[in-house]
């Protein structure tokens, strides 16, 4: 298996920049610890024992490799590209977030940190973090926006069951961005003993790089599995994008192969022509938030706008800095799907494939539904089915006007 070091190009640079994006925009109080995490990660990724333990946990605890499944009924329904689903929803805890949670807690342990904090939106990253904290016997506090707590009750219960403290964040828009503010504040206060497990490819360097490296197992497996099934590379990859961890996880192994087209699907909420969406690249401008420079939803005066998506996991007004750069270089195409399109895809996948997807990858599927029919039958398309939909049944039922 490839080591964690084998990644696209030489980016980020030593200061964590992807072109003009990325960096370390944090308060001076946090700079020393951010630099310490960077040094520790650079050592760890070169250490065979660290990589070996990570691989073993992914295999025996997470259940990797996740299957690459030929979605035969979806393919025939859409009548174009041959569609494969990368089944990261079958991971332990039901989403891809466990991949980077394991990597980061191994690093926390290596650094001698005794307490874990994390932010969460949909609750998937919170559950993944609470899970690894239980597994490694470390106390854990999860920050979650009050609004998200209300719409993700099952995940809140899971986190508590796993022994985590869930702290409701009532400031600002009470969603993911506010949870991240609060986690950063906690980290400042407890910088000596606490490790912050960030839930996406954002935050100050080295987080965007580190989380990408831990997630890149998705793309490496896909490459090998598709080669076994079809004898060749994919023609296109599709993934949903909030901060962008599952997307970069699928893309990273293919970025150097220009023949592979890539599509990242932002949440268009109630429409890009409204103010209620989470499409940072389509409708945002470069700015600085949460430790990095990237595309952000913001007012003309530089105030951060609240994002909206039916999917709590995509409800973030920014995007990982590597994605900002991949968009600017044109390597990845950034498209979007509305709440309504995602809901339709959510139902279609359930009925045709017997798989209830999370509302996050339902956005990716909504774009597959548009794209696949335009492609020839020998076109190989891989979509990252990065989370399962159990957590979303209440939200979906409400949106569909059904009582449960």
């Amino acid at each position, binding site marked *: 298996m490839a080591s964690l070091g084998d990644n696209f190009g030489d980016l980020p640079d030593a200061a964590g920049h992807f072109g003009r994006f990325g960096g370390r925009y944090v308060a001076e109080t946090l700079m020393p610890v951010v630099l310490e995490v960077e040094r520790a990660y650079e050592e760890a990724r070169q250490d065979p024992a660290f990589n070996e333990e990570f691989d073993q946990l992914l295999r025996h605890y997470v259940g990797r490799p996740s299957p690459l499944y030929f979605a035969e009924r979806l393919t025939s329904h859409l009548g174009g590209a041959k569609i494969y689903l990368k089944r990261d929803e079958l991971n332990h805890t039901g989403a891809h977030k466990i991949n980077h949670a394991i990597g980061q807690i191994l690093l926390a342990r290596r650094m001698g940190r005794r307490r874990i904090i994390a932010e969460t939106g949909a609750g998937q990253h919170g559950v993944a973090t609470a899970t690894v904290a239980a597994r490694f016997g470390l106390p854990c506090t999860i920050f979650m926006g009050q609004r998200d707590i209300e719409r993700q009750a099952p995940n809140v219960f899971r986190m508590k069951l796993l022994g985590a403290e869930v702290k409701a964040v009532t400031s600002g828009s009470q969603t993911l961005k506010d949870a991240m503010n609060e986690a950063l504040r906690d980290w400042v206060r407890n910088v000596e003993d606490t490790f912050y497990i960030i839930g996406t490819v954002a935050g100050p360097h080295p987080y965007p790089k580190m989380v990408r490296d831990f997630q890149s197992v998705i793309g490496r497996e896909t490459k090998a599995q598709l080669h076994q099934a079809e004898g060749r590379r994919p023609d296109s990859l599709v993934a949903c994008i909030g901060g962008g961890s599952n997307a970069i996880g699928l893309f990273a192994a293919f970025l150097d192969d220009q023949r592979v087209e890539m599509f990242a699907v932002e949440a268009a909420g109630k429409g890009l022509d409204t103010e209620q969406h989470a499409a940072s690249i389509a409708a945002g401008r470069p700015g*600085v938030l949460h430790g990095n420079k990237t595309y952000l939803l913001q007012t003309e005066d530089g105030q951060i706008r609240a994002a909206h998506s039916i999917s709590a996991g995509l409800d973030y007004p920014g995007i990982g800095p590597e994605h900002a750069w991949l968009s600017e270089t044109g390597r990845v195409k950034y498209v979007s799907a509305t709440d309504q399109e995602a809901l339709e895809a959510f139902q279609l996948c359930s009925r045709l494939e017997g798989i209830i997807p999370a509302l996050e990858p339902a956005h990716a599927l909504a774009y597959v539904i548009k794209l696949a029919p335009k492609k020839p039958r020998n076109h190989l398309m891989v979509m990252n089915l990065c989370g399962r939909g159990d957590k979303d049944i209440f939200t979906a039922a409400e949106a569909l006007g059904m009582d449960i």
Partner: protein
Amino acid sequence: MSRTDGRIEKRFAALADEDRAGLIAFITAGDPDAATGSDLLAALPAAGVDLIELGMPFSDPMADGPVIQAASLRALKAGMTLKKTLSMVAGFRRQDDTTPVVLMGYFNPILAFGVEAFAKAASTAGVDGLIVVDLPPEEEPELADPARRAGLRLIRLAAPTSLGDRLDCVLDGAEGFLYYISMTGITGDSVPAGANISRAIGDLKEASSLPIAVGFGIKTAADVRALARHADAVVVGSAIVELIAANLDRAGAAKPDLTKKVLDFVRQLAESVRLS
């Protein structure tokens, strides 16, 4: 303006002549509304404030506690913008040309304004220095070059965590004064028992000839008196802002005696720096 004869340098030189520490008061521009905010700003020097730290409201102030975040949100709700913050300073300068004004905030509104344009406009308005909380020395050049060309001081922050290997990096290029954050915490927190602030200030003074201001967790006249013996200036922020919040009616509007109550408190703090 040369690097030595700005309002900040003159003020610290005058404080040294008087042999006392200065009082730095923080308020958020436009909190709770533009008119009340301007009145407060104008009245601070006469209440005994030596240097004013004026917050540029930001929606997501990740290094601030709930008190200052709430002040930002009140100001934004009342229509405050970065442009209006600069106009407020320009208005202040028409009646006071000696009290230094340092803007404190986050980088994103400055980026949105345009770094070059902001530096020029701030200087023209009469701003003396900038504290940009999420711009550590490593990311500072983007703002530092235009700011220095415009004659603004970029005030460096030092925290307890900066005192070891990192101190050289923090001091290299520092100007105006050093802002020592008394604890690893956010604004509005209390200083933990056992924090050795005087020793940290001593270490900083050994390494730098700049004046040292100390802030975070300083809430009362007694706190001010205790720290004024060690530092060149003492910053009070959340305690003042909390008093603004406590003097709003249910609709969030300023009660008639808000300004008086805030200024009475500020006068107590000002007496403390003069007594110690």
